[in-house]
Structures are given as C-alpha cells and as structure tokens.
C-alpha cells in the first residue's frame, strides 16, 4: 500500500481508533460511538475491558443472505482476530461455519472500497447520501440534497427506481425495506439470493400459497430422507450438530437416506444413498407417497388426492419398500428434505411426504419473499426498456451472481443513475456511477431471526475505512425525502426491540435487557407456528409434472461451493484453498460427471467441456466423480469472479442458472486439458484400511485391539497433564470447518493454486476421505503428537522435541529445514514453508494474524501444536482464578469450531476426563498402530447404520 488512499487505515490509526471506539462504542451500549472518530487516541487512559495482551470477545452475528450464524468474535487490542461459534446459542454451542470464520479475511481484505466515489472520483458522504436520495426519489419530489449533489442527473428518464437488495434474516432490516417501499411509491424492491435456487420457494408457494421455508429439526429426527438436499454441508452447523447428536447413541441412531444426482457431503454420509438423475427424483418421491399410502395406509392431508404416476425405472421397487417402511416406522421422527437445487415438484412431494408422515422433525417458518430468476429476468427486461431511472444494488452483485450477469452489467452501465452499496468492490460496483461502501458485518449493527431465536449483531471493531452502515444510508434517504426515520439503524433496532422483543423478557429495564442480549448475542423468541394447509391442486400438478419429466441429454445441478459459497466470499484465500469435501479440489471447481458418462462422451479427468444450459454456456474442466448418477452434471456456483481479488479463479456457472433449479444441459467437448489443483491422494489398495468403520450390528462383538510396543527409551508419566485427543468418526461428517478454524487460529498461510498443485498446501489439519461414495469414512488428520515420535529422533538440531505434558513441539527458530522429520512422519502432517508464504503481506491484511502465534518464515517446518497458545492461555487464566486446570479448560480451535463435537481434547492423565473415557472406547484405534509411534490421538471407528433388510 504505497500510497494510502483517503480513508485507508494504517496500523497506528487503526489501533487508536479501534481501541477508543470499542471502549466507548460497544461497551457503553447505546451510544453510536463507532462513527466519526478518525483521530488517533493514545492509551493515556486505558479503555475499560481492553487489556493489552488479553483477548476480548464479542457476541455478534454473521449475516449471509437468507441465513445467519451467531458467532463469538475474539478481538485483541481492538482488532478481531478469530471468529468462533456463539457458545450461548443452544443449537450451536460454539460450533462455527467456515464462511463466518472467513469474515476476518473479508474484513481486512484488499478488495474493500475505502470511501464513497462518484464516477470514480471521491465524494463526501453528505453529497453521496444526497445523490442516493435523488436516485431513489419519486420523479418531481424535492430532494433535500446539498447543492452540487445532483451529479447523477437522472432527469428525463423513466420514473421508477429498482432496488436489488440481498436477502436478509434481519427483522429490522426487513422493516426498513418495508418503510422504503411504502415511502417511495416508484421504488421496486427485489430481494435476491443467488445461491438459493428457485425451487424451494416455488414449491412452497404452490403447496401453501406462501413463501414458507422448511427448517429441519434434526434433534427430533429418527429417519431422514434427503431428496437432493445437503443439510450437512457445514453451512448449517446447528443441523450437523443435531444430526451427529442423533447418531451418538449406537442403540438409537438416526438413519440417513439420500436420493441425489451428484455426490454431496450429505450423500457421502448416508447410510443408503440412491444415485438418481435429479429430473427423476420427483417421480421417485411421489412413488414413495403412493407406497406410504398403499403399504401403511398413511393419511393424506385433507383435500389432497393420491398422486398418480408410474414408478421410476430405478431404484428397484423392493428398496423403495424398505425406505418407505423405515420412514413409516419412525413416524413423526421421519423427515424429508428437498434440496434448493431441486425443481418445485420435488419440494411439493417433500411437503406431501412430511404431511403424510406427520413429521415433527421439520418445521415450516415464514421467510422473506425472494425474487426468482424469472422476476430478475423481467426486471432486466424493464431496465433495458428504460423503465427505471435508477438501479440500486445493495449487498448483492447481479453483474456476477445472476442468470444474466452480462445483461445486468450492461443495464447498470446504461442506467441514468446507478448506485452500488456494498462492502467489497465487485462486478456491479465497477458498472455503477455512485459507489457507497458500507460496513463489513464485523463493523455493523443488526439483528437476525434464526428459527425460534433472535440474534444480535454488534460491531466488534471500529470501522476500518470511511464507510457507513448500509441501513443508515437508506434511513437518511427517508429523512431527506421528508419521511420519518430514526437517526440511525441502531436506534431503529433498539426501538423495535423495545416494543416487540422486550415484552418476551418480562419486566426489566430496556438498557439492562439490551445489554444482556448483546452480551449473549442470542435470545429465545419463539415464532408462532405456521398453520398452512397443503393444496391438493399443487400435489396433482406436481405429480403430473414429475410423471411428464422430459428426457434431456443431461441434468445440471448448480450448488453453492462448499468453500466460497455463492461467490460473495470468493476473495477469502482460506475458503478458496479449502479442499472440497468430496473431490478435494481447491481454487475453482470442476464439472463433476459420472465416469460412465465421461467415457461415453470421450472425456477424461481434466479435459475441457462446454456446458450449455439456461441460455448461457461455460467451459469447465471435467472431474470424474464416482457415485454420481449417470446423466447428471454438477458444477459449483461462486467461482469465476471478474472483479475483486479473486478475479480469474475458476469458472462462473451463473450464466447456466436456469429459471427453476435443475435444468437440462448439453455437453460438448472443448479444447485443451487443465486439471484443477486438488489435495487428492491415491485410492487405498485392497486390504489397506487407513480409517475404520463398522456396522451397527457388529458393535456388540467388537473387541478393542491394542498393541503394546516396547521401547528402549524411558517410559513413565511425568507429573502434570498429558494432553491427548479423541476423534469420533461417527460424529465427523467431513465438513471442512476445523480446517478454517485452525487456519485462522494458527496463522496458517494460503499458498495459492500453483503451490497446491505441487502438493504444498499448509493446512495443519486436513479431513481425509476414504471409501467414497458408498463407504465413506472421514478421518481428520493432524499431528498425532506421538509418544515415540519418529520426527523427533531424526531432527539433527533438536528443533522438534517432546514437552513434559506430551506435546510434540516445533521450535521454529531452531529449525534449519532439512525436512527429515516430514519424511519420517507416517501421517504426513508436517508442513514445510517451501517459499516465503507470508512475504509481501501488508496492512490491513496482516491485522488478521493471531498475535499469540508466530508467523513462520520460509525454510521452516511447522505443524499442529494442539493450539499450545490456548493451553498457555488457560494455564494463566486458571492461575489467576487460583485453581488447577479442569477438563474442558483447554479447547483447541478445531475442537471448538467442530459442529458435531467429533474432536475432544483434554488430559489423558486424568482418568475422569472426557478424552480419557473416549480414548478407552471399544471403537478406539490408533492410525498406523503397527508402527509403534504411540499417537495420543485415538480415533473412534465410524458406525454405519444400514437398514437390516438391505444387504450390505
């Protein structure tokens, strides 16, 4: 950053404003202290709660379009350094999601716009807000804008304005949007969530006449059927957590059936997975409904006629019978979920099945009405016809994430007035005249609805740049146009909470109530149950549509990437370099297809292929995915950005996004060959079982195998703890949450696609996947802290050695870099800094580093430390409390973030600790036990729960 732009932040000013504003703003709640403080304030008086060297945590919420995650932000000296799940959230209990954790990177990312601009030139905020008001004002309305702000000159054009807003879970923001719609009659508002697919909402509209959303309540589920749904993908940690909890007791395990085309993470975890072309899933679902009625006499909802139609050609009818019997046996504990990429008829069928089963494991809840791709197309048509005087994009990026990105880019560029409100300068921003940077979510206020909970969002840091809270811009528009609006978003939020939420809490003064709510970040606020009747006509039409599904060359499934989601977070290196849980690809995504299809099309791994669908086409690298249904193509949304730091990474699948979910596609061979970088290894050889699994029925006969390896070195316990870990593979669902948590906590560098292609990724923990698609076992692999560690004996300079409390330590500044330790590590968890991976990093990017962890230079080996800094931190903490360490005092980042509590850390010297008890489990085993390395990590074999009537 050689030439700081106005509004950019240097370290000194950052520390000053950060600490001062935090002290004043977020702690003395209710003030709006985060704004306007641009002077450096030295620590002549230490702000309360800020002790240099000690972390302060803030509960807040990470919004992500139609969903949000309650999080706990760790700040050091006023800067956020780590995001974890909120441990007060009853569904999360500290579980996090990779996308929320990557908020740290987006906050300090290089792509953010630092101050408002008009036609590329700087513009002061009052004028910028005036220009926005002018753009949104109804024609002829007097705008209370300061002189000179009429720079957008929207006179003479059509009278309407279009506001494309990102989807939100914030009730207060929804209220603001309603106010805007009421106050500005010429304003059309569309809420757009690009990764959601249109099928779910269309299905709900058809079935119930309202945009209801299905919320899985897997804590109540005994049998779960997913129709193309991927609830365990890691973006819903509460669902993963509930699912794993329902599998914990081997005597009473939830059974997971998955019917899907492409292999998803949920599909990999299934007890039974039926690979079915997506266009045939609806027919299969209705066949299940017929069987439920025929075999078990399941009651149909009133007014619904039995769905007619033929059975699908596959899978075999006997298997469908088993599935139906299993669902019926679970009754209200059975749940059917349809995936967002599925067409509406699958969703209708899922609603019907849940109604017939009387399922209590799914709940209907009201949801924001989202624009469908059809709505968007109509709006674009209108924009082309000159219907709008102004186009405004707020927190959404139609010039990239929409079915017609080029059309939207042109429309924004051609509009008389075009305004972009967002955090990271994106494709739409570059097409807009007026660019208004808003706060990152870690700098902003908000509230969010999360099922029966309300969560609060508060700033964890003073704004780094000259940005504004997005809602405040629109509040100001309302005021300037002479409407009543609160002074800022926090005032609106507090007013709403005072009126609507405070009564739930009982008779407490509002300031105390709000402070308590801010502290916890989450509170119970049950929604009224939705009473909606399934429409018979919808079922009839959906069954007819399912029966009439036309054969297409291929069915195309587009889904948000497991890492970068719908592309909003594409600038995060952590997420780009996060291996896809199924095919392990990084930095872009391939076109997955069934090997048989690829053979027919003459395509091999890495060949280029054109996909034509939804009126667009895109060129992908082909990946052969075993387990994928024939006739199915799958690609990820979220890659192929054309602006921002991630431009040029991967291919954008958005142009293929059809009007409704699964689309039919054509495939043609492209030129060239380009294998995507991936962290895949080889397939295990016959007889090689690096990870263990067993059927539930075999559990009673299981005997713990333990090998005692004699050693020449002195054995014997040293006083004090002996740290160890237990990882339950039944609970591990293979999501990459632990990887990102570790990366954030331990300053693990991002190395880029070329280095990953060479095999030089630096992750300290990785999730090994074996046995895909049918017999999947996910085995998180990290340093095993072996008691007889092969790495320690071969290091010529003693740079890696053993601590008295059982840690295999790595002394970075003693390491010479001979790499012998890594060769001799059978688990291959040691990572070498082949190049200066942290070189060239500047502010603000380096502010994301955890100050408790060394940033390693090149030429040095590194690996998992069991988060030794957290162990030290806990030691100091309990010393201050005058007590010894107790079980649960130390939680490494991976264990803290894991949604399913698969990872348990603790003291093996304490026989009562959780980790000791788990390590003694019959399912326990050590990876590569025969080598005699004596790891302190015990893995608990995965339990499979297949239906007894299905032959294994």
């Amino acid at each position, binding site marked *: 950053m050689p030439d700081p732009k106005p509004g950019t932040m240097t370290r000194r000013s950052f520390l000053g404003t950060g600490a001062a504003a935090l002290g004043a703003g977020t702690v003395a709640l209710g003030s709006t202290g985060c704004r306007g403080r641009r002077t450096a304030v030295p620590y002549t008086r230490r702000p309360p709660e800020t002790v240099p060297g000690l972390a302060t945590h803030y509960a807040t919420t990470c919004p992500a379009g139609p969903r949000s995650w309650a999080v706990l932000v760790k700040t050091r000296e006023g800067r956020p350094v780590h995001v974890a799940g909120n441990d007060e959230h009853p569904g999360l209990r500290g579980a996090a999601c990779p996308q929320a954790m990557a908020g740290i990177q987006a906050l300090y990312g290089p792509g953010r716009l630092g101050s408002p601009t008009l036609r590329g030139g700087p513009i002061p905020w009052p004028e910028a807000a005036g220009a926005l008001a002018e753009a949104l004002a109804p024609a002829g309305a007097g705008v209370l804008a300061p002189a000179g702000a009429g720079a957008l000159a929207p006179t003479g054009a059509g009278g309407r304005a279009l506001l494309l807003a990102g989807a939100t879970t914030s009730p207060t923001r929804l209220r603001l949007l309603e106010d805007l719609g009421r106050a500005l009659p010429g304003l059309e508002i569309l809420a757009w969530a690009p990764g959601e697919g249109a099928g779910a909402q269309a299905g709900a509209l058809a079935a119930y006449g309202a945009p209801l959303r299905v919320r899985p309540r897997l804590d109540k589920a005994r049998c779960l059927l997913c129709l193309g749904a991927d609830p365990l993908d890691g973006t819903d940690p509460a669902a993963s957590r509930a699912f794993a909890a329902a599998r914990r007791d081997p005597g009473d395990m939830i059974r997971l059936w998955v019917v899907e085309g492409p292999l998803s993470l949920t599909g990999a975890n299934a007890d039974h997975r039926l690979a079915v072309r997506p266009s045939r899933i609806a027919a299969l679902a209705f066949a299940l409904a017929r069987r439920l009625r025929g075999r078990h006499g399941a009651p149909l909802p009133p007014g619904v006629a039995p769905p007619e139609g033929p059975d699908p050609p596959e899978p075999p009818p006997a298997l469908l019978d088993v599935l139906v019997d299993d669902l019926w046996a679970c009754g209200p504990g059975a749940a059917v979920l349809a995936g967002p990429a599925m067409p509406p008829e699958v969703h209708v069928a899922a609603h019907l099945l849940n109604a017939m089963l009387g399922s209590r494991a799914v709940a209907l809840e009201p949801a924001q009405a989202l624009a469908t791709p059809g709505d968007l197309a109509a709006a674009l048509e209108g924009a082309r016809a000159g219907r709008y005087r102004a186009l405004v994009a707020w927190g959404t990026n139609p010039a990239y994430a929409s079915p017609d990105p080029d059309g939207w880019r042109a429309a924004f560029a051609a509009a008389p007035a075009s305004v972009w409100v967002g955090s990271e300068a994106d494709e739409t921003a570059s097409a807009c005249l007026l660019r208004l940077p808003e706060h990152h979510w870690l700098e902003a206020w908000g509230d969010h609805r999360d099922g029966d909970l309300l969560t609060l969002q508060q700033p964890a840091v003073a704004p780094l740049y000259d940005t504004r809270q997005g809602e405040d811009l629109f509040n100001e528009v309302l005021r300037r146009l002479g409407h009543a609006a609160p002074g800022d978003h926090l005032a609106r939020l507090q007013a709403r909470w005072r009126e609507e939420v405070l009564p739930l809490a009982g008779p407490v003064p509002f300031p105390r109530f709000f402070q308590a709510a801010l502290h916890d970040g989450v509170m119970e606020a049950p929604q009224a149950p939705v009473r909606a009747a399934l429409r018979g006509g919808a079922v009839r039409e959906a069954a007819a549509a399912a029966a009439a599904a036309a054969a297409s060359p291929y069915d195309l499934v587009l889904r948000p990437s497991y890492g970068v989601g719908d592309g909003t977070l594409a600038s995060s290196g952590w997420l780009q370099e996060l291996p896809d849980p199924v095919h392990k690809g990084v930095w872009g995504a391939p076109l997955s297809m069934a090997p048989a299809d690829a053979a027919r099309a003459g395509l091999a791994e890495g060949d280029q292929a054109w996909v034509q669908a939804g009126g667009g086409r895109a060129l992908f690298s082909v990946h052969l995915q075993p387990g994928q249904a024939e006739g199915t193509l799958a690609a990820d949304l979220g890659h192929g950005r054309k602006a921002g730091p991630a431009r040029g990474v991967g291919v954008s699948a958005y142009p293929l996004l059809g009007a409704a979910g699964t689309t039919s596609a054509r495939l043609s061979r492209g030129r060239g060959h380009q294998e995507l970088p991936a962290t895949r*290894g*080889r*397939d*295990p*050889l016959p*007889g*090689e079982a*690096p990870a263990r699994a067993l059927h539930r029925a075999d559990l009673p006969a299981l005997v713990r195998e333990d090998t005692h390896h004699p050693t020449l070195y002195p054995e014997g316990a040293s006083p004090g703890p002996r740290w160890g870990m237990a990882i339950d593979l039944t609970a591990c669902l293979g999501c990459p949450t632990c990887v990102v948590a570790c990366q954030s906590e331990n300053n693990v560098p991002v190395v880029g696609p070329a*280095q990953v292609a*060479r*095999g*030089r*990724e630096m992750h300290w923990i*990785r999730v*090994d*996947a*074996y046995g895909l698609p049918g017999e999947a076992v996910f085995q998180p*692999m990290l340093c095993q802290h072996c008691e007889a560690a*092969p790495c320690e*004996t*071969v*290091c*010529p*300079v*003693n740079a890696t050695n053993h601590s008295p409390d059982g840690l295999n330590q790595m002394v970075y500044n*003693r*390491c*010479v*870099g*001979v*790499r*012998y330790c*890594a*060769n*001799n590590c*059978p*688990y*291959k968890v*040691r*990572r*070498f*800094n*082949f*190049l*200066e991976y942290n070189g060239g990093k500047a502010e603000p990017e380096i502010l994301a580093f955890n100050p408790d962890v060394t940033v390693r230079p*090149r*030429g*040095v*080996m590194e690996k998992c430390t069991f988060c030794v800094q957290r162990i030290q931190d806990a030691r100091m903490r309990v010393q201050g409390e005058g007590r010894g360490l107790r079980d649960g005092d130390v939680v490494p980042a991976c264990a803290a973030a894991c949604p399913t509590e698969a990872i348990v850390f603790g003291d093996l010297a304490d026989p009562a600790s959780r980790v000791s008890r788990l390590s003694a489990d019959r399912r326990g085993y050590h*990876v*590569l036990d025969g*080598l005699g*390395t004596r790891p302190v990590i015990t893995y608990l074999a995965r339990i499979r729960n297949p239906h007894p009537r299905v032959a294994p």
Partner: protein
Amino acid sequence: MSPSRNPALAMAALDDQVLAIPEGAAPPWWGRAIACTASVTALGFALMAWTVYRGIGVWGNTSPVFWAFDIINFVFWVGIGHAGTLISAILLLFRQGWRDAIARFAEAMTIFAVICAGIFPLLHVGRPWLAFWLFPYPNQRDLWPNFRSPLVWDVFAVGTYFTVSLLFWYVGLVPDLASLRERARPGWRRGLYTLLSLGWRGSATQWAAFGKAYVLLAGLATALVISVHSVVSFDFAVSIVPGWHMTLFPPYFVVGAIFAGFAMVILVLSVAREALGLQAILTWDHLDAMAKVVLGMSCLMGYAYLMEGFTAWYAQDAHLARAFGNAVTGQYGWTGILTLACNVAVPQLLWRRAWRRSYRVLLPVALAVTVGMWFERFVIIVVNLHQDYLPSSSRPYVPTWVDLGILAGSFGLFFTLVLLFVRFLPIVATSELKARGDHA
C-alpha cells in the same frame, strides 16, 4: 603386468611424459573443454544462488517428496568418490600393484566428487545460513545437535571422509610435487611447487616417514570406504519410510557406491588417457581390471535388488510390498526398469574379455552404469517417498528446470575440477611407479 615393469619405460621418460603436462602449454582442446564445463558450473551456481534467495520452493520438492534431486545428487556424488578411496587404500593394503598408475587420478576424483556431494546437504536445507547448527560446537546456549539423528552422523562421516581423502591424496602428491619443483624454471610455478612440496628432499628418513604415513592413512581410508556410505544409507535405513527401513541398505549402498565410482573412473580415465597420450602408462590392463570390478559389483547389485524383493515378500508388509511394486510399475515404473537394465543387464557384456578391452563396449557400459546409479537413487528416494503410509498423502513429484540445472551444474563442477587437475598436477603417481620399478 604392471606398466612399470615395461623395460621400455625408463624413469626419466615417465617424468617427461607425466610431469610435462603441467609444465607445458595448455593443449587447445583443454581451453575449449574447460570453457564448456565452467559455463555449466556457472549456470549451476547461479541456480543455487536463486535457490538460496527464493527458497527450496523453486525445486520440485513437495509433500510427501520432501527430498528429491538434492539428496539424490548427494548420494550419487558421495558414491562416485568411493572408487578412488577403494583403489588407493584397499588395493594398496592388498598389494595390488596395478593400482599405482590409476590411484592418483581416482583419488582426485574422490576429492572432487565429495566436493560436489558436499554442496547438496548445505544447499538443501531450508535456511542454509544456519546449517552450522549441525556441528557440535560449544556455544553459550548449551545447544547441541541431536546425536540420534542420522543427518548428524552424516556430517561426521562425510566430514571425516573428505578430510582423510584430502590428506591421503596430498601426502601421496608430495614427492611428485617435489619432482615438479626440481624440473620447474624459476618463477611463480617453482614457488608454488616449492610451497606445496613441503620441503621434500627424498631422503631415506623422509621416505620412511612417508611410507608409514601413507599406510596409516590408507588404513584409515579403508575403514571409511565401508563406513561413509553405510552412514549415508542410515539416512534411509533408520527411518520408518516403507522401502527405506531395511537392514540391507548399508552393504547395498557401499556396493552401489563402488560400482558407480569405478564406472566414472573408467569414463574419465579413458578420455584422459587418449587426450593426454598416456596409453603406455594407463594400459588396457588397467581398464580391464576396473571393468572386472564393475562386473562383480553389478552382480552384487543384482543380488541386492533380489534381496529387496525377497524382503518385501518375506516381511508380508503391505506398505513395503507396495513400495517395491512402485519401483517397477505405475507412474515411475520406468525409472526402476531403467535402473535394473543399466545396473544389472548391461554390465553383463563385460564377461567377454574382448569387450572389456574395447571402448565401444566399455564406455557405453560405464555410461549406462552412471545413469543407472543416479536413477537407482531416484527410485529409492522419490519413488518410495511419493506414496507412503496414508493414501490421502500420496502426491506425484515433478522436477523443475532449477533441479535439472543444478544437477548439470554439479557435473560441470566435477569436470571443471578434473580438467584443472589434469592441467596443473601430476595425474599419475610417478614416485610410486618409480618405486615399484625399483622393486621390479
């Protein structure tokens, strides 16, 4: 059989023929040759500097192939050195008279090969400027190297080997340097040879002391022939990498080293013999004897490969079996097959006496052995590392052009040093030949 018994070759003629080379003007081919090798050396050193500047990442090394060309080249060059030590020390102790004519040359090659080898352990570490931490020097931090680590053993083994080889070679050179001093006209050359010959006058006392020292150093060097490559093999044998962890490795490495070293001596000596007109001193008898050693070692290598396979089968260990299978099948199978062909099959041509005495057969065979032994180390290091215990960690290895450039540079350095040697020092131990002539 010894050339010194040839009555046609008088002692003075020997001096004229051998010592005239450093005294006379450089032959025209010499300038061209050294320009060539020095440029390759310069390229190699430039790439080494680039490596130190940017990091090991400019090489193809990766996870799990943390060692690749760096250690292959190290083992290869240390091995090349072994022929020299074997010829000069062991054959001296066994009173093999034919060794005298080639001992000096072979010893020099040992020194040069160990210089080439010594670059790599230094260069391959992530932070070369801290490599001195491998030495056990007293320091205020009371930090010592880890004496359990084979890499520390390597430091001692290779360090000792280089020191003893250098001393042995230099002690043998002293009488010849004195001869050069006597023959040189006053000038810088004479000054240089005076300095280097350490006041050698050829007195009986000096000859007696020389004889004792020489035999003593020969005894030391003999132990080193066995120990150095055994210790180098411990880098692998002591580890738990499948395919490395084998008791077979020490003798297998020593045999391989002698094998590769003799092949290299045959190659270089043949060229020197023709270029410098030393056919009378370095006769076909010498080349024939060395070819027999190559043939014998080739058979031992074949036996070692068989034993590797036997161990893989007898251990009934899936990982070891896979490692052995990877050597001849799969992505890198061609390297193992090339190794077997070059090291076991091709040298069998040397059973025929006529072919041992023909450049047309001998030189291609020696070249094949050199290539084969380099690839043998590739198989041992890269092929075994790229797939070890956990399937998830297997990744392929592809070298970069920096790897290839540094390999070429090490050959450039070796041949540059050889060219300097043949130009400026007596390449045949004339004193020993004369002494043997006395006894004849």
